[in-house]
């Protein structure tokens, strides 16, 4: 393949912008990979043509190329995904001709043609005996963190105006899909209706985050609580729980509330992990300063000892 974009597009050096555009359109119609799925040569050619047009299609870039400021290389478009690369997937079936009224019909047609069933179809013919499951309908649902953690029922209005009851199972994960049997498109003949597939997005919560089957929360405590230990009320997804903070805890220490997390599919429940954070008051008063000065006089521990040992 030639490197010269003029040659790639098959235009003269003096061609007008309009002529270049016309030449590109002609080639795009001839070579577009979605019109020739699976043809690697045409794809390569199309990419060369696109890259050439990237330069020549823009009057400014073209003059920079003509004066040698930029070369033909380095302006190729990044590898692009073409539609036909997805169209082979099952989920692309929504774009089959007649999809929504059931693409299965055409598929059965192919086989009936192949194996001559139509000829042997008898009196009623093949079509009247045709039964197929209705198509699946895809929906999307945003769910609050707590609803997802504890499970909930939601009434949802579908785009077609139908109302539908959706049960969100406790512990559902972000991106999980719920299948509602029989809530999709109607079936054909005696075929059953399709399913509604509801993809769930879980909205973030200001306090709780999810880590596997555990729920994490950050709990602020005062310095005296950290030194002396205390009993605090901690919110969990299933209500407030009294928790003991032991004497002498540090920021970042993690305490575990067993069985206060999310339900596990195999049975049982995850834990709630409480991350402690020591918070000082906004204003340090004189007495607190005195306390710290007093403390500094007789305490010689160095929390950065390890740090120093590994860096020097």
């Amino acid at each position: 393949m030639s490197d010269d974009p003029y040659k790639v597009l098959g235009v003269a050096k003096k061609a007008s912008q309009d002529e270049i555009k016309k030449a590109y359109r002609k080639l795009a119609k001839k070579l577009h990979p979605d019109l020739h799925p699976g043809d690697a040569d045409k794809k390569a050619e199309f990419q060369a043509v696109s890259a050439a047009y990237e330069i020549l299609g823009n009057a400014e870039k073209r003059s920079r190329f003509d004066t040698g400021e930029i070369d033909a290389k380095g302006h190729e478009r990044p590898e692009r995904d073409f539609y036909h690369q997805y169209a082979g997937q099952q989920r692309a079936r929504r774009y089959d001709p007649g999809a929504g009224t059931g693409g299965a019909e055409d598929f059965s047609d192919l086989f009936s043609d192949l194996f001559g069933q139509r000829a042997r179809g008898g009196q009623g013919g093949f079509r009247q005996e045709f039964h197929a499951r209705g198509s699946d309908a895809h929906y999307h649902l945003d769910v609050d963190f707590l609803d997802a953690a504890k499970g909930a029922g939601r009434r949802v209005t579908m785009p077609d105006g139908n109302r539908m009851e959706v049960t969100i199972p406790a512990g559902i994960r972000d991106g999980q899909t719920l299948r509602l049997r029989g809530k999709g498109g109607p079936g054909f003949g005696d075929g059953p209706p399709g399913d509604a597939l509801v993809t769930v997005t879980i909205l973030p919560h200001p306090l709780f985050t999810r880590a596997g089957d555990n729920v994490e929360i950050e709990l602020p405590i005062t310095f005296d609580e950290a030194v002396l230990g205390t009993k605090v009320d901690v919110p969990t997804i299933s209500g407030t729980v009294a928790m003991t903070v032991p004497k002498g805890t540090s920021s970042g220490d993690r305490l575990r509330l067993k069985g206060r997390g999310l339900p596990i599919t195999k049975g049982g429940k995850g834990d709630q992990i409480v991350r402690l954070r020591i918070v000082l008051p906004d204003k340090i008063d004189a007495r607190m300063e005195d306390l710290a000065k007093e403390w500094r006089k007789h305490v010689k521990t160095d929390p950065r000892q390890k740090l120093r040992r590994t860096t020097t």
Partner: protein
Amino acid sequence: MSYDERTVVTRVERLTLRDLRLWVRKGWVKPMEGMAGPLFDEVDVARICLLRDLKTDMSISADALPLVLSLIDRLNQTRRELQCLQRALEGQPDTVQQQIIARYAALHEDPE
């Protein structure tokens, strides 16, 4: 992974929100319904790129676009059915495969 309207318009060069909404209204692109508007996945985005190419690069008129699109959809459907058939054949014993290949070749030579 799914994208909302605005993300799609920024991701796909030379695409206007007006065109995108028109294509959805016409049923040429079928996004999922999110709570806050339509949501597009990779299949939809690739298809949107194709529609843009057809409209912008090949200047297919709005009247002719559905025709071209339905032909492309039919082509892809047929391709998938052939792939399906091929997989079904691959599952057959060698002798059956050989017979089908021989018959196929004969039909190629002489369709009658």
